[in-house]
């Protein structure tokens, strides 16, 4: 069953067609990856799903319900669509802990009056969130040593991890990751890949990601959709996508396809 289904989505900015008739589905409890060259429309698609862009045509169905353009980003967040950004969008002046707690914002209820008084319901709720964040997320992502540090002081890899933590605090059903391992070293990439797999397997969260690192994409994805010039070229299992001529053309141009295919798929040589 698909938790997210994109049908015939079109988005243009003036004359620029960012997305043309895009259709694909995200099966539930999978790691689904959107790949494609730069400018193919991957981030635009994310922005449509999270409600920042309003597509001119087409629909996005989430859990069988059509998300109309009247459903604004905060509401979509409350429905269980969480995301991270390509260039980290943390709150730089706040500590790691406060950033993660902000993820839980939609699930908290204290109003202004109880916040002013603090002692009583507001404090009980804060402590429950703190406990949940500590035990469920900070432990899992191994960031307990930095919880009191302001985000600005952290390395890039750790900032990406904190952003993932914040998205997890939203208790999402679908986690959208925009280039989760871009700019990371090998060790950080392996850590992140492990976290993504654990999130799917242990927490049962569907992961939808955009990523350029083909090694990682082919290793951990269950389902891949390929976007080029705003159109879906193909979708399917990693092995099928790797062999697809259109995909190879989109990535490598129209020359000697056989030798390029070997580059893209080194294991294929043995066969």
């Amino acid at each position: 069953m698909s938790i997210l289904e994109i049908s015939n989505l079109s988005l243009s900015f003036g004359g620029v067609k960012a997305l043309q008739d895009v259709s694909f589905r995200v099966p539930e409890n999978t790691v689904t990856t959107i790949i494609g060259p730069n400018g193919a429309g991957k981030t635009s698609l994310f922005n449509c799903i999270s409600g920042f862009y309003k597509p001119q045509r087409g629909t996005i169905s989430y859990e069988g319900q059509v998300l109309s353009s009247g459903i604004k980003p905060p509401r979509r967040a409350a429905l269980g669509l969480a995301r991270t950004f390509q260039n980290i969008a943390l709150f730089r002046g706040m500590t790691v802990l406060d950033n993660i707690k902000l993820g839980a914002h939609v699930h908290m209820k204290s109003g202004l009056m109880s916040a002013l008084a603090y002692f009583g319901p507001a404090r009980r709720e804060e402590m429950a969130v703190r406990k949940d964040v500590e035990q469920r997320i900070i432990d899992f992502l191994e960031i307990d040593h930095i919880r009191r540090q302001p985000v600005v002081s952290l390395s890039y890899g750790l900032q990406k991890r904190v952003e993932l933590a914040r998205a997890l605090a939203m208790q999402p059903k679908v986690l959208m990751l925009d280039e989760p391992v871009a700019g990371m070293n090998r060790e950080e990439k392996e850590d992140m890949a492990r976290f993504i797999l654990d999130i799917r397997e242990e927490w049962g969260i569907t992961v939808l990601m955009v990523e350029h690192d083909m090694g990682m994409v082919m290793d951990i994805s269950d389902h891949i959709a390929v976007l080029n010039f705003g159109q879906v070229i193909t979708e399917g299992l990693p092995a099928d996508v790797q062999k697809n001529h259109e995909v190879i053309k989109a990535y490598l141009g129209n020359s000697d396809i056989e030798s390029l295919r070997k580059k893209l798929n080194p294991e294929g040589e043995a066969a």
Partner: protein
Amino acid sequence: MRIGDAKQSYEADEAIWTSGTQKLWFGLFLLILLLFPFLADSYLLYLGCLVGIAVISTTGLNILTGFTGLISLGQAGFMGVGAYTVAWLSLNTGLPFPVTLLLAGLMAAAVGILVGLPSLRVKGLYLAIATLAASVFLHFIFAEWESVTGGMGGLSLEPAHLFGWTFQSDFMMYFIIVPLAVLMVFAARNVFRTRIGRAFIAIRDRDISAEILGINLLRYKLMSFALSSFYAGVAGGLFAYFFRVVTPESFPLSMSIFYLAAVIVGGMGNLLGGILGAAFMTLVPEALKLLTAALTPFYPDAPVFMSPMLEIIFGALIVGFLIFEPHGLAEIWHRIRRFFRLWPFRN
């Protein structure tokens, strides 16, 4: 060097004071506040009350500008709304001061929400201009709506009263103003320990990610405006009870700039900074006057020479602080504290 402060519970870890020493110092500070009116002369008492009012209003503006990132030049206007509400209520009803002050705050909050409406669309300097327009508009209402505000002549009011007590002297007013200031600063501190305060800061730091986390921008921006102008309204109400006359000229535009300067000099987004900024902005001009008086015996020309210079020196001090301490007076305090925490080591 501070050691051995491992915590056993999340409650202890998130407390405002995490060590006994801090509690002791704060207790001492409260004791000084309590004893101050018995020891101070009438001039110091007068200044103490002014600082108390300024602390409330600066804390309010800090919530809006320092923590939520919305620049406002309407603070004096909101204080005016509070002051006129108190004046009108004390003239036309017999309500005691806790009720009138609460209503003053609520009235100002309502006006604040109206003024805050453009904040969803306009940001930064544009919002400053929008709030400036609101403050000019409020000034116009204060001056022209004669049946309610008494026009240019303003309103004179009776002293605050409660259960047959009247609060006529500065000494009595001190015991309304200062406890209220302490209470309201704590209430603000509490807000920033909860989801509401975090949402404000999130909007300041990066409003797009705030939205993706499910924070409704308009709702929280208006909430920040309401809370901030509630503080201004209460401060204005106290101002009315303190001076017992309210005119349109009591709340000039320069007063809004005064509070904005207090927030910036003290430290934006830092409640302690707001307090220090309010004290600095209120007390430094007075200190300069005292300095002039102290110099007169040695240089008989001092008053002639100094009085036109006071404003210039005051301005230069502000500029100096901004250059050498861009994070505000609060940063100086943090540095002192860090020194003692690490002593005898250096950071």
